[in-house]
């Protein structure tokens, strides 16, 4: 505890100063200038939009943006001096960039809801599209066959990629062999494989060789290629969070290395590993190109994973988007809404489960 001493003259000066309240971050003058800087350009442009016939985009880019930049520049100059001007440019532009992204997102999600909701009905979700042509009214047929197909394909992909993905993560975090940097590198490189290339690959080694038809199995293999890197990388992050004390404890009790991993480490990271699987599924569930190549298309409900081509939600959307029939397009919007809801549910599940602490 030290005290600061001032000479009497300075002390008197200090005491005469008004309290500056440094904790009050925004003085009124600042607030006023910001409010003005936001309101004035917006009002001018709104007036121009209503009163003149300048097209909207020009108004936005040629008039509003420069006007907003100048207004905030002046406001910043008034409160913070010349140095404030470059700050105001950054602030205005970064708010603009955020708004741009939000507008795009709202537009996508909003249009899905507005145009897709009309198509949804129990029959749309559960019936298949046999006897349905693109011009058939929406009251008949549905995407039940595609939903079954997507679920089957994703299930097969998970059966293949989840064990391999977790084993890869175990190799990186538990075995810690010499090749760890290389394995990491290859997993990273694999995550960059374009989905259409994964589809082509499965087409050449599975379908073109005559081993299997276009089928849920072939589609699942293509999905597994895309899913594996996500599962492996997320599982790696999760296994790293398991405290070393658990490992040393298990080993010290005489457990073998395999038992330590299988009975202690993986159960401890259970929730995290479920998250990894869900993220992997969410990553692939909307992929279209690999299924166009490897799984084909079908109007009937197929449950045989090997024999025949199979429909899926993404390929159903793909086939209906550009058709000149309003009902087919409405089906595309409806199934797009179903697909995005599936993705959203998966991500929410991953968040909720992932929030549970590792080790419980």
């Amino acid at each position, binding site marked *: 505890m030290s005290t600061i001493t001032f000479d009497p003259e300075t002390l008197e000066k200090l005491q005469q100063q008004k309290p500056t309240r440094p904790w009050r971050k925004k003085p009124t003058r600042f607030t006023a200038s910001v409010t003005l800087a936001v309101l004035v350009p917006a009002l001018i442009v709104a007036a121009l939009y209503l009163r003149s016939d300048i097209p909207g*985009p020009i108004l936005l880019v040629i008039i509003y943006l420069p006007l907003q930049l100048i207004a905030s520049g002046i406001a910043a100059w008034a409160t913070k001096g010349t140095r404030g001007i*470059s*700050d105001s440019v950054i*602030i205005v*532009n*970064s*708010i603009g*960039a*955020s708004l741009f*992204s939000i507008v795009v*997102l709202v*537009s*996508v*999600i909003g*249009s*899905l809801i507005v145009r897709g909701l009309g198509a949804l009905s129990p029959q749309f979700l559960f019936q298949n599209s046999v006897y349905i042509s693109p011009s058939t009214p929406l009251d008949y047929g549905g995407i039940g066959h595609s939903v079954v197909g997507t679920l089957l394909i994703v299930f097969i992909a998970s059966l293949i990629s989840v064990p*391999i993905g977790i*084993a*890869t993560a*175990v190799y990186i975090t*538990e*075995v810690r062999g010499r*090749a760890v940097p290389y*394995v990491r590198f*290859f997993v990273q*490189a*694999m*995550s*960059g*494989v*374009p*989905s*259409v*290339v994964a589809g*082509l*690959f499965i087409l*050449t080694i599975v379908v*073109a060789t005559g081993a299997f038809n276009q089928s849920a199995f072939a589609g699942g293999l293509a999905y597994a290629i895309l899913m*594996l*890197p996500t599962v492996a990388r997320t599982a790696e992050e999760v296994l*790293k*969070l398991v405290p*070393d004390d658990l490992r*040393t404890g298990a*080993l*010290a009790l005489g457990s*073998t*290395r395999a038992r330590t991993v299988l009975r202690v480490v993986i159960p401890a990271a259970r929730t995290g590993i479920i998250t990894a699987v869900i993220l992997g599924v969410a990553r692939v*569930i*909307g*992929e279209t190109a690999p299924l*166009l*190549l490897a799984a084909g298309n079908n109007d009937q409900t197929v449950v045989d994973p090997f024999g025949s081509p199979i429909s899926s939600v993404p390929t159903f959307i*793909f086939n209906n*988007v550009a058709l000149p029939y309003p009902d087919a*397009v409405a089906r595309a*919007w409806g199934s797009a809404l179903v697909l*995005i809801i599936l*993705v959203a549910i998966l*991500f929410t599940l991953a968040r909720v489960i992932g929030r549970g602490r590792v080790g419980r």
Partner: protein
Amino acid sequence: MGGKTGLVPDASQLALRDLQSAATSHRGDRVFTRTVAAAAFTSLLVLAGIAIFLGLQAIPAFQTQGWSFLTTTGWDINTTPPTVGIFGMLYGSVLLSVVGLVIAVPAAILLAIFMVFLSPPRLSRILTNLIDLMAAIPSVILGLWAFYILNPTAEEWQVLLNKYLGWIPIFENTSGNFLGTPFIAGFVLAIMMIPIITAVTREVLSRTPPDLINASEALGCSLWTMLRYVALPYGRGGIVGGIMLGLGRALGETIAVFFVLKLVYETNWDKIIESGGGSVATLIVSRFGEVSGPLELQLLLAAGFFLFIMTLIVNVIANLIVSRTGRLQK
């Protein structure tokens, strides 16, 4: 994170390694270790498999076409031998990605700056979730949206661009058709790249040591000078890597581009608002539906091979840059 990064990490690490190597002598463990190691190399196996099998298919295509497969543009199957070249498609993929990058890079970096340095924590948490959601939109849905919602708006913008900036060569349009242009396709790619670049940039910017930021503020730096001299140089490697990752995604994007780009078998060099362009990935999907025979399929597989090589190179460079900066920052 595991609490092992304190002053005395070595003792426990050593103990763990000793215990593990002592346990490895067990026979079941050797089986376990080998199984896991074998699974770990699946990724290498798949990468090699793609390169080998698509590469083998590319050989016949090369034998009939020679180097003109890579240096010319065209897709005529009916002549014998077919005259096919994918230069315009490869170039088109790059052109679309560049258009996308021009839009996405400034937007993503500014967005990340907003999230890290400007917005209140609660808002930036909401934004993070929204950006994640944006990344999760399947490309077929983005294609559907672009086809019906973006197209009319973008057409209007492009007409205006052409009207007022038409004297700049890249904004020329002689056909009067403003749909199916590289600009629209690039815009859709930008929407896909923004979440990727933003996520990486936000990550590296938020790792800027607070000491450096505080010091720069104490020295009287404004936000701009702090970004210019502290945060951006510090995160430069990561940002470049994030951009490359986005580029890798854009080069391989298929379905969304399929709906908004009019595929033409000639090279569109720089007319970004002229209808018609190329993209390898889209070529594969659009030709596959009406493939005429095994020869054309082989040509498509060859195209896929070069797409794979192109994206692999971009991704490897990106990951090297990202992991190197990651190490520097630790």
